[in-house]
């Protein structure tokens, strides 16, 4: 009885082993076949793409001056690739050549395709469509782009905002500025790129007005963007912010950053005043601003800050001393020698080395020229 049971058990194990072997081999063959199919598809896609680029790259390059009389058709499978190349070229050039490239899109019927992508495409197609329509400056899609600028997806909304600015900057600013205030998920670098594209004559005043009316934390965010524009236009709006009571420290730090970037001598006494503020990050901003706009006498304030209790203040003060507009290589060398050995000298030394390293190729270049 036991022998029969053992025999049945071992037969079952053989069957299971056999089944497992066949299954594993089957899976291996399947994966091998699948890999070969994918590889073949990849090679064929690459070849098709290469052919498409070989045909279209010279045509698009020529179209920057004047498009040829006849344009080859674009296969539906190549539309996305075509739009990538077209947009890349659009972003490499400026001036009237951009209009010539737009004519290619219209003549090939791709403008209808991008409108379709905008309405019913995947996220990738929709993003491509938004960027393309921005370059085409197509006002018919304005309401749709305004809706997309309010979309929860940060990529989609940012690209829509950028397209609106490209289509009609003055009209886009009232849409854009409230969005910059609200959207903490927008990449600051992307926002800066949009603001640069819009031009400070359009954005500075609107950002300044919004900062004056906004809650302190949003105002601080807007002031940081405003500082990056380096525009003097908003300064008359922003200066009265400092008279507000209570004055939020983030807003004060944003104002000092803006004053430093704009370097208007009228703001120098205010910046000096805040170099002794009890909050460390206000002193950091004051030191940085002094480095950009300070005069000879401000080196004494900055030297004093080299002894600050907070490391960041000492660091920014040292950096500011090395880039102070009135500072020369000789004065800086003398200053390092006169400082007592210790933290003050220690923190200034790398900035001195950096300054001399930068002035070295300048001297070499001048001698070569």
């Amino acid at each position, binding site marked *: 009885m036991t022998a029969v049971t053992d025999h049945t058990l071992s037969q079952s194990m053989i069957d299971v082993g056999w089944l497992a072997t066949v299954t594993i081999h089957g899976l291996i063959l399947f994966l091998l076949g699948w890999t070969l199919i994918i590889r073949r598809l990849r090679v064929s896609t690459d070849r098709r793409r290469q052919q498409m680029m070989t045909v279209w790259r010279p045509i698009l*390059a*020529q179209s920057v001056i004047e498009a040829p009389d006849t344009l080859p058709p674009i296969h539906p499978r190549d539309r996305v690739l075509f739009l990538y190349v077209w947009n*890349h070229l659009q*972003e490499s050039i400026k001036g009237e050549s951009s209009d010539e490239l737009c004519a290619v899109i219209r003549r090939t019927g791709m403008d209808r395709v991008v409108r379709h992508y905008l309405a019913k495409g995947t996220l990738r197609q929709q993003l491509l469509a938004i960027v393309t329509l921005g370059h085409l400056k197509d006002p018919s899609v304005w309401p749709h782009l305004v809706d997309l600028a309010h979309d929860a997806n940060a990529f989609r909304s940012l690209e829509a905002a950028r397209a609106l600015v490209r289509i009609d900057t003055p009209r886009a600013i009232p849409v854009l500025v409230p969005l910059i205030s609200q959207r903490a998920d927008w990449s600051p670098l992307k926002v800066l790129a949009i603001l640069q594209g819009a031009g400070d004559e359009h954005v500075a005043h609107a950002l300044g007005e919004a900062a004056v009316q906004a809650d302190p934390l949003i105002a601080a965010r807007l002031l940081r963007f405003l500082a990056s524009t380096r525009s003097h236009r908003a300064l008359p709006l922003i200066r009265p912010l400092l008279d507000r009571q209570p004055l939020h420290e983030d807003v004060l730090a944003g104002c000092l950053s803006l004053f430093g970037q704009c370097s208007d001598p009228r703001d120098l006494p205010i910046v000096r005043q805040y170099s002794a503020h009890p909050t460390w990050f206000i002193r950091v901003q004051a030191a940085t601003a002094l480095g950009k706009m300070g005069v000879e006498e401000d080196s004494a304030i900055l030297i004093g800050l080299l002894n600050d209790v907070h490391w960041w203040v000492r660091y920014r003060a040292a950096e500011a001393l090395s880039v102070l507009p009135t500072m020369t290589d000789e004065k800086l060398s003398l200053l390092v020698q006169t400082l007592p050995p210790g933290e003050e000298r220690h923190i200034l030394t790398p900035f001195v080395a950096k300054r001399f390293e930068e002035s070295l190729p300048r001297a*070499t*270049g001048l001698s070569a020229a």
Partner: protein
Amino acid sequence: MNTAPHPDKPTLLMAEDEEDTASLLKFLLERAGYRIVHAPDGLQAQQLIDTMAPPSLVLLDIMLPHMSGLQLLPYIRNKPDWQRVPIIMLTADSSEHDIQQALATGANDYMVKPFNPRELTARLSRFLKIAA
């Protein structure tokens, strides 16, 4: 690649890695009457500098693979035959520090991408007239 000087056309060494931009520049500059020698990265540009006769002008992208335009600049300026060749830098953004460094190291001018094709060809012709 034929790098021998052409008797009629001014030769221009172009170091640019982005294929689309290189293709556009090649079209624009050939149309403007230049013969283009193209290097798609910094190392190939360095090899060309070692082997070819000094061109009429160098168009150098700052951001190049393997060796940047800023590293190539002193290399070019240290070659006796190449010291007077005008060099125009191409930069993807208006990074003041890079531009200052390029001009201090021996570049004659720079253009920021995106560029106006007509402005680019006009600037190149101006340098060629000065060099002539």
